């Protein structure tokens, strides 16, 4: 065998002068804004005051304990978790119905998606809260759950659902948010299912798989890999949208932040802090989905 020349070395990518200029520009802009704000705004920054609403120091006992904002953060995480799970389930079903041959299922799913997509979230939330959850939940007995019942009076319940007294309130928030986001997820799921070619259906049907099995084993796994990026975006939107349910007095982060801001009058500190908290939750979600995406890509190579 004749010896062939080896591949020429690829020059390493380096940051050019343009890149450095851009970075410098951004940094200058940030510092200039901070300087201007400090210069123009006559405002007495007091982070201590707001931070004490995250963790409170009890001077009598000498211990630290969680305070309002941390409770709010926990509620938001719980809310986001359950709403994500529920929205994924509803979205999957409705999204599949959108692709069905059955006309009834198509009408129902289309109606659901269009109705929710085309009214503002605020309106939906008010309608849902006053006409649906406030009528149905009392009838189902969620409003007067026995607080000492073993089922609810344990650590696990408190971790996953929070305070029993607020359970009905919490449930309304979860349902509301899930139903709202499910409409968008359904559209993503529909697009994913439809992106898988007819040949995959035929091949799977030809080896005798039932409709359900074709979906489970062939279509959804492939669609799932394709829709991960838009799905990640939708779930992050869900977390941020969870702040809207503060309007129906769900005591999550935004609701409690409003209270803290008005009682301390430290508006800027409160909202900057709360913004940071939201960023942390959303960004960890983005990282998680980035990891899932890389994994999915690897298995398709």
């Amino acid at each position, binding site marked *: 065998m004749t010896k062939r020349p080896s591949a020429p070395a690829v020059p390493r990518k380096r940051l050019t002068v343009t890149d450095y200029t851009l970075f410098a520009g951004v940094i200058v802009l940030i510092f200039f804004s901070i300087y201007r704000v400090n210069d123009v705004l006559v405002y007495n920054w007091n982070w201590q005051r707001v931070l004490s609403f995250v963790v409170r120091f009890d001077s009598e006992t000498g211990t630290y304990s969680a305070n309002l904002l941390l409770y709010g953060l926990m509620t938001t995480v719980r809310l986001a978790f359950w709403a994500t799970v529920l929205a994924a389930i509803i979205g999957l079903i409705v999204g599949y119905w959108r692709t069905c041959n059955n006309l009834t299922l198509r009408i129902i799913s289309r109606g659901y998606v269009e109705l929710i997509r085309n009214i503002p979230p605020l309106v939906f939330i008010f309608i849902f809260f006053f006409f649906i959850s406030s009528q149905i939940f009392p009838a189902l007995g969620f409003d007067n759950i026995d607080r000492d019942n073993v089922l609810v009076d344990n650590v696990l319940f408190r971790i996953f659902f929070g305070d029993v007294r607020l359970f009905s309130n919490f449930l309304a928030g979860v349902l509301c948010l899930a139903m709202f986001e499910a409409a968008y997820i359904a559209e993503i799921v529909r697009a994913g299912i439809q992106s898988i070619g007819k040949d995959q259906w035929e091949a*799977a049907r030809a080896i005798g798989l039932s409709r359900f099995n074709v979906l489970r*084993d062939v279509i959804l796994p492939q669609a799932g890999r394709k829709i991960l990026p838009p799905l990640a975006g939708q779930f992050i939107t869900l977390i941020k949208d969870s702040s809207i349910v503060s309007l129906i007095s769900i005591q999550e982060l935004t609701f409690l932040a409003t209270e803290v801001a008005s009682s301390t009058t430290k508006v800027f500190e409160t909202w900057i802090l709360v913004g940071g908290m939201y960023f942390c939750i959303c960004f960890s979600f983005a990282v998680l989905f980035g990891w899932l995406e890389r994994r999915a890509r690897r*298995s*398709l190579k």
Partner: protein
Amino acid sequence: MEDQTKEPLVSISGLSKWYEDFNALHDINLTVSMGEKLVICGPSGSGKSTLIRCINQLEAHQKGTIFVDGLEVRPEMKNLESIRRDIGMVFQNFNLFPHKTILENLMLGPIRNRGLSFKDAEALAMQYLEKVQIAEQANKYPAQLSGGQQQRVAIARALCMTPKIMLFDEPTSALDPEMIAGVLDVMVQLADEGMTMICVTHEMGFARKIADRIVFMDEGEIIEIATPEVFFSAPESERAKLFLSQVLGH
């Protein structure tokens, strides 16, 4: 009842199909006996693929009857899965499941439809992969294989259901020329083992070698049915003559 061994496995009578207003199949009558090898040929758009896709109901027909192994196949029937189990199908573009390994591609049908355990399905799958000579690729994904290898995997996937009949829908049309032989070898081997086969193909050499009968179709109709000797040397119809001169003419 003069010949018990030649009982029809597939019998089609008066079959017609329309796509909207287009009459894709017109009054097809055809029987295929157990162990028989049928090659369907004809110009493109003549309804060859549609015909075999009606047999396992990937396409629904509007008129006529299709019996497979004594059971009538109808578009609206509920237990199509149990009939499809007996009908293996190989597609022009392989249609492997890209997210599953070769082995998983083969195991899916036996596990879901035949209710085999994971271990049994794996053993079965390996047995058929060895038969088509790609056992060493078992844990790769379809995209890592050549077209010819993928098509052999597709054949093995269909065989895993231990079908009574195999349908081939232009299995070599999407392959590079140097890949075709390997796939045809597997098909010839299958024919030699006595598998009942219906092949839509343009491989006339293959047809001459394995076919018991050749079905020539044009414009959704069967124009003539003949043994390869007769069909290639003295076709009856003008359309078959024209077709053969075009296929074999260069």
